[in-house]
């Protein structure tokens, strides 16, 4: 990713708009009894597109923004989301996955990691109220909902960040084959 004021500004804009959209609209619409959670999807998309450092930093910032606006314990959501963003970014750096459904799998994994990580941290910090097993159902339903939303969220993020990104893996490989760079026939 090309780092300059405009690209950082666009990342900040994605975080702010996504965060406000989550708080004012998405969190108030319950489907299957639970609202979707855009934050791990945004973080996973940024991690996949921009790499581990950008993913982790974006996750940290978005988590801090959410914790601040909701008067929650500062640092908790940041810790969970920066881990998700870093993980998504490392996947891109190590594997450079090209399949079109990778964002769906990564979005679902990021949501699961965020939900489970958040629950574990809550237990570590001490929960006063009894915890129902229905929480597991809620986590599962959130993962299902987020899986459905992962692709559109990824597409929006890619569109916003496109001018600052290197070519995506599929296009890079296609071009390499057509120009003869990586084609096995070119060795003959």
């Amino acid at each position, binding site marked *: 990713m090309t780092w300059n004021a405009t690209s950082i500004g666009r990342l900040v804009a994605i975080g702010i708009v996504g965060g406000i959209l989550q708080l004012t609209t998405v969190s108030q619409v319950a489907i299957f009894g639970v*609202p979707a959670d855009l934050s791990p999807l945004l973080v996973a998309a940024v991690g996949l597109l921009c790499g581990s*450092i950008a993913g982790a930093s974006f996750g940290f910032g978005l988590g801090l923004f959410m914790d*601040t606006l*909701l*008067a929650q314990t500062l640092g*908790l959501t940041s*810790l969970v989301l920066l881990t998700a963003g870093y993980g998504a970014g490392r996947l891109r750096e190590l594997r450079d996955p090209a399949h079109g459904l990778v964002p769906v799998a990564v979005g679902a994994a990021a949501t699961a990691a965020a939900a489970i990580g958040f629950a574990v941290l809550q237990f570590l910090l001490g929960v006063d109220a009894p915890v*129902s097993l229905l*929480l597991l159902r809620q986590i599962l339903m959130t993962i299902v909902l987020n899986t459905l939303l992962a692709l559109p969220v990824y597409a929006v993020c890619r569109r916003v960040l496109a001018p600052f990104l290197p070519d995506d893996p599929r296009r890079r490989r296609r071009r390499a084959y057509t120009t003869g760079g990586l084609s096995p026939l070119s060795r003959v």
Partner: protein
Amino acid sequence: MYDRQVRRRRAVLLALVACCLVLLTAYFGESSGGPLKSIQTGAMEVVAPVQEGANRALKPFRDLFGWFGDTLDAKAERDTLEAERDSLRRQVAELQVAKGENDELRDLVNYGRDGGLAAYKPVTARVYSRSFSSWYETIEINKGSSDGVEVNQPVVNGKGLVGKVKTVSDGNAVVMLLSDSDFGVSALAAKARQPGTILPVAGTSGDLLLELVPEAREVRTGDVVVTAGTVSSRLPSQFPRGIPIGTVNRIEGEGDLDRTIHVTPYADLRDLDFVQVLTKPTADARASTTP
């Protein structure tokens, strides 16, 4: 070159994790008026107008999605409501008799009470944002300290208790809902006259527990649960007596010790557009103080 990149990546990750841990530690360690909480309140104040604007602008989209969900739930809800209506008709008849007796007794002790919530100086507020975590069930409202709202004041809507004020800034406030894992309120099973404490069950916003009930076997399914109000004149409760919380929907366990009383709140905590903050919750403390 590669080593430098790896070192940089690890350094950024470590720095961010360290920042989180420092924030967590500092947040837990500071008092309610500490610098981090003040910054949080200030930031909320700054972003609140944007959130409120976005909330209004995006309401049609919310309503559209809500309409699909409501249509799916409507049939089951109709059957439940019909059963509830029949039950309420019987209760109305009983209550009308009781009200007559009550009025007569009030006149006898020469105690006038204007009824309703007017005495508690309710301030009506619009909900413009809500949390999405099962652990922190909060909403944000567009009234704050400049309207007389203070921390811990009870929040209600037309159906019953919604929660209490958690944080206040000048023009906005965060309300902790009944289902937040930190919430608790002293309550009373109205028919059985059994006091207890209402606690949430993390992960289920439509389910509360009535705990610490001395004679739990007296409580029956369908009993109405209301706030208990003040039980000590030295420490008046922030919740006025008699605000409806919900109904007992099921009781688990047979013995006295393992009996779990589940309460369904009257207020639909997932669908809140307007709420009222009771800014003078101790207005009738004299009346509700038990000797």
